[in-house]
């Protein structure tokens, strides 16, 4: 079976006319058919002659041993009967069963011991049956591999280029003469440039083991510029191991190609580290930006900030309990709800505790710490001390595959975008609304603002509520990354204060830049120092930095800057 295929297929590729192509195809299948007989006889000691038609093959399948089943799959691929793909896919999924009474094959769906049957020839429903009357057509690892390739060969005829590319990539993983031949055939009829390219890569991969050194060299040249992992794995032995290929030119070319891939890999790894850093940074920014208001603008050391985030996260959890079947809507609705819940909690804290303590920042620290303990215990009493998980909507989960070497996790991309959005909105509120104007006025000169008719007490409450509400929104984002529990907020408290102080108390831009910067630095250090050491080093750096510049990166004037 083996040697004839490549040759004839090559001839087929050279011959352009459709008529010739069909004739060659017929010739190909015939010659392979005879060879298949020889192979089957040699491999399995069974003298059964395989039928040549689809129904016949199906009838032979249940009794066949594994090596004969391999032959049957090969025949099916050559014949490509209608509905053959469904048969192969069902077989791969262990959903192909034979009736014990007459040995007839069915595609089955099992539900509570009852099988709903489908005729593989017509794909029509064929009634139901009991599971004990049927026997599964088993497969082994080798057969599963063959089945996957066979399904991929069917998929080559799919109208969608995406499916065809996936099929080519599937076939590429396990190239042999048959698949190479099938791919060469396919290249003739393929119109889509992207699919053509993938097929060419696959054929070049196949040519890497060709006996002709010139062909191998051409294949390596053709693969240059490709970055897919399987290409890399195929080229690596040629480049690194001098005994892998006798030809020096091939080895040199392979080395160049491998180095090219490695350069790109390094680049994308750096890009990935940057992304992880920005992702961590975006979480820090989200968590800190509310504190930049309460601490930065108002000068209140709000130790309950983490707990206000926790309230937001629990709001997301409750929203999901209310809308169990629509996680997407639950998450989106949780954002305004969390803003309201945490914002109102913040106003309550300001009115009942913080307003007695203005001008005594160290005492706001102690009192709000007390508030944080009460809130934690409250959540423990209401929701139990156990951690809860909030499901992510489907559009937030999964990978965003940008190319062979680079992919991003969707939820992190969303949260990065979300943090920037929250930042932009907050800037807009502070700089473009009447509330923002009053907030800034009170922060800069309370007495003067009061003289101008600003109701400073009201503004204090609203500012605190705004910062707290943003903490709640941050909590919704956190609920998409980690479990929601009573201690959720506590773990962020030191990080958030460090971000705000590093950025410069009272400066929103400072908070954004310091949050992102600290996230990136943390992730850059991690590969060298380990996660915990990286964190320790960042903390030490911050301690030293605050000694040098106690007012942070972007020092600002205001109530906070004067009071402390």
């Amino acid at each position: 079976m083996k040697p004839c295929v490549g040759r004839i297929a090559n001839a087929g590729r050279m011959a352009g006319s459709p008529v010739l192509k069909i004739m060659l195809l017929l010739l190909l299948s015939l010659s392979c058919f005879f060879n298949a007989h020889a192979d089957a006889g040699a491999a399995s000691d069974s003298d059964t002659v395989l039928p040549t038609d689809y129904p016949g093959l199906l009838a032979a399948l249940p009794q066949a041993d594994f090596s004969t089943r391999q032959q049957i799959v090969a025949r099916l691929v050559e014949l490509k009967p209608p509905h053959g793909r469904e048969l192969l896919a069902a077989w791969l999924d262990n959903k192909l069963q034979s009736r014990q009474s007459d040995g007839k094959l069915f595609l089955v769906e099992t539900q509570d011991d009852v099988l709903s049957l489908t005729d593989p020839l017509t794909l029509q429903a064929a009634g139901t049956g009991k599971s004990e009357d049927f026997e599964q057509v088993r497969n082994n690892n080798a057969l599963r591999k063959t089945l996957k390739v066979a399904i991929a060969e069917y998929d080559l005829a799919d109208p969608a280029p995406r499916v065809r590319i996936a099929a080519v990539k599937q076939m590429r993983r396990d190239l042999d003469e048959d698949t190479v031949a099938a791919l060469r055939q396919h290249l003739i009829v393929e119109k889509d440039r992207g699919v053509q390219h993938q097929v060419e890569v696959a054929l070049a991969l196949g040519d890497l083991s060709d006996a002709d050194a010139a062909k191998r060299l051409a294949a390596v040249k053709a693969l240059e510029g490709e970055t897919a992992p399987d290409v890399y794995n195929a080229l690596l032995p040629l480049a690194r191991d001098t005994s892998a290929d006798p030809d020096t030119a091939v080895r040199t070319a392979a080395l160049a190609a491998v180095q090219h891939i490695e350069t790109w890999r390094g680049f994308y790894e750096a890009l990935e580290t940057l992304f992880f850093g920005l992702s961590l940074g975006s979480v820090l920014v989200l968590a800190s930006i509310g504190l930049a208001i309460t601490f930065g603008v108002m000068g209140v050391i709000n130790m309950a900030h983490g707990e206000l985030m926790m309230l937001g996260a629990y709001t997301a959890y409750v929203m999901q309990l209310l809308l169990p079947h629509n996680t997407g809507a639950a998450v989106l609705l949780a954002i305004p709800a969390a803003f309201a819940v945490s914002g109102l909690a913040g106003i309550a804290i300001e009115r009942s505790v913080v307003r007695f303590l203005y001008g005594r920042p160290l005492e706001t620290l102690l009192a709000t710490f007390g508030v944080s303990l009460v809130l934690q215990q409250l959540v423990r009493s209401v929701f139990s001390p156990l951690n809860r998980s909030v499901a992510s909507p489907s559009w937030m989960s999964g990978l965003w595959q940008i190319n062979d070497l680079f992919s991003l996790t969707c939820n992190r991309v969303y949260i990065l975008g979300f943090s920037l959005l929250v930042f932009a909105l907050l800037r807009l509120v502070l700089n473009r609304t009447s509330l923002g104007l009053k907030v800034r006025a009170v922060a800069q000169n309370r007495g003067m603002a009061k003289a101008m008719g600003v109701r400073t007490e009201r503004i204090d409450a609203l500012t605190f509520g705004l910062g707290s509400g943003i903490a709640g929104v941050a909590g919704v984002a956190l609920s998409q990354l980690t479990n929601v529990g009573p201690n959720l907020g506590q773990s962020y408290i030191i990080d958030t204060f460090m971000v705000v102080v590093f950025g410069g108390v009272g400066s929103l831009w400072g908070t954004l830049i310091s949050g992102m910067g600290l996230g990136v630095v943390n992730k850059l250090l991690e590969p060298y120092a380990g996660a915990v050491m990286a964190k320790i080093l960042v903390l030490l750096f911050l301690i030293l930095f605050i000694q040098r510049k106690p007012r942070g990166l972007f020092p600002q004037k205001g109530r906070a800057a004067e009071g402390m």
Partner: protein
Amino acid sequence: MNLVQTRAAIPGRLLFGGDVGHRVFYGVLLALAVLVPLLNLAVPEGSALHLSTYTVTLMGKYLSYALLAIAVDLVWGYCGILSLGHTAFFALGGYAMGMYLMRQIGARGVYADPLLPDFMVFLNWKELPWYWHGFNHFALAMPLVVLAPGLLALVFGWFAFRSRVTGVYLSIITQALTYALLLAFFRNEMGFGGNNGLTDFKELLGFDLHHDATRVGLFLATVAALALGYAACRTITASRFGRVVLAIRDAESRTRFIGYRVESYKLWLFVFSAVLAGVAGALYVPQVGIINPSEFAPINSIEVVIWVAVGGRNTLYGAALGAVLVNFAKTWFTAAMPEVWLYALGLLFIVVTVFLPQGIVGFLRQRLGAAS
């Protein structure tokens, strides 16, 4: 003004007015030092007056907390430095003591290694790290109880005070310091037992730690340390040095302009306070029987600050009173109704800071002062 208040005013003035408060403090310590050993060792176990060893140890723990609270009050109440990292010094002193106790276990550990503590055998370490050498000698280990926190405070304070980091910023970086140490001590590679810390201690200076008499001895040592530490703080605050420190608290810039080197005053006060905290940690560890990284947790430092605030800062004995009262309440609540404890502690924080800024001692002084 009614009669009851007038009557109360006389012992009240004796207690809290003038110089009397600290005499009461010494008196209480002396009474404890006499009564506790007597009631534990001399009174038979069946008697109603018998004090269980568990209670003795618990009181010893409270008193080591009281020493820590005094250390915090010294810098916060007298100099306005709100350190949220004092448990770092406490824990470092504790670890120094813990390392000594660990080496005393010798071959009696689970793995019976004569040299290596159990956790090192478990981690498959082959030899003792260099910084563990010498800890088998009490005379070499004890200086480290003082030196480890003292040096950390010296280096940290030197940087912080020289660059004039004050107020909230100082509080936040002390918190970051203790958090960094918490993370560092969690690492197994540090060689301090990682997550589990140091435990399973057997004996101290040859005395069995599980023996009643040893427990009483530790209690007496704690009382003595508390008395000495308190006396030292009194001496410092009453001295010329102490008056400069008060001036720094009330008007830092003015004190500087008059010509005092503000940062050195702050630095030495801070270092002394850290040393006291280290000693408190070293007394705490053999009584509690374990030291692990959670002692570094920033929340613990904040809790110490609240003890001081509850008792009344700027009085020293008020800090000790607050430490004992809050911890007694904690022990009682966590046993009787654990779910209420955090509510109670949280409300205590709020009520004390909003309504009792001078703490219990300040409140009593005010009431009794008003009454007379």
